[in-house]
């Protein structure tokens, strides 16, 4: 795996791969991330509204709670898990099939450092795009909550917006973005590793891509806990 981070053979080829991967991994995930964010944001705010049905608790808490849930946990971890499923299986099978069809050997024969050529652009692309997707998911999640509250008449616009801005700690945002960067690294490196070391035929490629998803999901849950303890406590 050390060879992944070795010297890049040709920078122009490297950057064009990074752009291509950003397009594939990032743009390919925008739609699913947007849909999930809006809907879950809406559900979070409605559930909060139902639970906070007491005159003692101010209504703006709904906006406040939606914001914090979305920023702290939903946008980084849940989106991370969804991307582990989508991107992980995609990368695992792509690199795995390159291995079994000897395309990786062909790269090696030419004198290309195949690990570096295939894997590094994916990792770099994910490190760039995942925080952006996470940020987008936060905005859309809160927007979803807003739309749900306003359209169902649970809350008025000003109260939600007041709540959503109330006692905002920038550190929470940074914490979540740090998580998204770590998760991006976990998803891409585990999936690439699983694909790169496939042995056998197409059946093993399928298994590798499943393992890529399972292992990266579990690692995400584990590191989510570790980072939360380290950064929030």
């Amino acid at each position, binding site marked *: 795996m050390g060879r992944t981070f070795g010297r890049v053979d040709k920078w122009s080829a490297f950057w064009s791969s990074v752009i291509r991967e950003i397009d594939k991994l990032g743009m390919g995930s925008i739609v699913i991330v947007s849909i999930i964010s809006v809907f879950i944001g809406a559900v979070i705010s409605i559930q909060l509204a139902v639970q906070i049905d007491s005159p003692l608790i101010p209504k703006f808490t709904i906006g406040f709670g939606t914001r914090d849930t979305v920023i702290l946990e939903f946008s980084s971890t849940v989106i991370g898990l969804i991307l582990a499923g989508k991107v992980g299986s995609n990368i695992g099978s792509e690199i795995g099939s*390159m291995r079994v*069809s000897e395309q990786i050997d062909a790269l090696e*024969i*030419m004198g290309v450092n195949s690990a570096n050529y295939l894997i590094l652009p994916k990792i770099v692309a994910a490190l760039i795009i995942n925080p952006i997707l996470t940020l987008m998911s936060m905005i859309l999640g809160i927007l979803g909550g807003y739309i749900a509250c306003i359209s169902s008449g649970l809350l008025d616009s000003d109260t939600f917006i007041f709540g959503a801005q109330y006692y905002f700690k920038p550190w929470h945002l940074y914490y979540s973005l740090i998580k998204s960067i770590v998760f991006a690294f976990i998803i891409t490196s585990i999936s690439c590793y699983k694909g790169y070391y496939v042995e056998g035929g197409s059946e093993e490629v399928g298994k590798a891509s499943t393992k890529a998803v399972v292992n990266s999901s579990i690692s995400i849950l584990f590191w989510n806990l570790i980072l939360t303890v380290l950064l929030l406590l």
Partner: protein
Amino acid sequence: MIEVKNANKHFGTNHVLKDINATFEDGKCNLIIGRSGSGKTVLMKCLVGLFTPETGEILYDGRDFAHATSAEKKKIRQDIGMVFQGGALFDSLNCEENIAFPLKMFTKMTRTEIKERVNYCMDRVNLVNANKLFPSEISGGMKKRVAIARAIALKPKYLFFDEPNSGLDPQTSIVIDELIIEITKEINATTIINTHDMNSVFEMGERIIYIFKGEKNWEGDFTQIAKSDNKELIDFIFASNLLKRVKDTF
């Protein structure tokens, strides 16, 4: 010239290559023949450095490849062209881009120079109207041609073919064989070919190495095969009844 000296390779307890010694000459088609599972592919992969033999040396015109530093290896590899059994074309790139790939990675050629070289290589292997097609859209024979075009793009000194005829009909096989012979003569390459195609053996076997259960069992050229009294070799070459009858007419 490529030399192998005392190469041994194990996979676990499976002793796949047993003390192989061989020399592969310039400007010739050097054939490695042997039954399925005898170790031909493993030997070829040792030669090109995809596997490292536990003992022995691999010399490319005197340069030791098996123990070279990665910078030296990289240098030697730019003189190597290899055609894999399944072609191993990059399926995210179309035919033209596949052939251009090594040129883009390892030369400072301009776009137009690359285009010219790609077109030359495609012409050389008689590929027409395939520039923009993807590997999934072309036939097995065309894949082999694209792979050959890609392998010769950088004007290699050493050419490797792992079963260039597998999965091809006899006529296409002959065309591919002739192409390999022509290219070898043209660039005076050290060409090494794994095959169990008897046609190829008699068509291009200027130097033949017969591998039997991981050991070099015989070497010579195709004119010497029929005269040989090596039982394993004879059984392998003249396996079919038709060929046995042909042999008896010699």
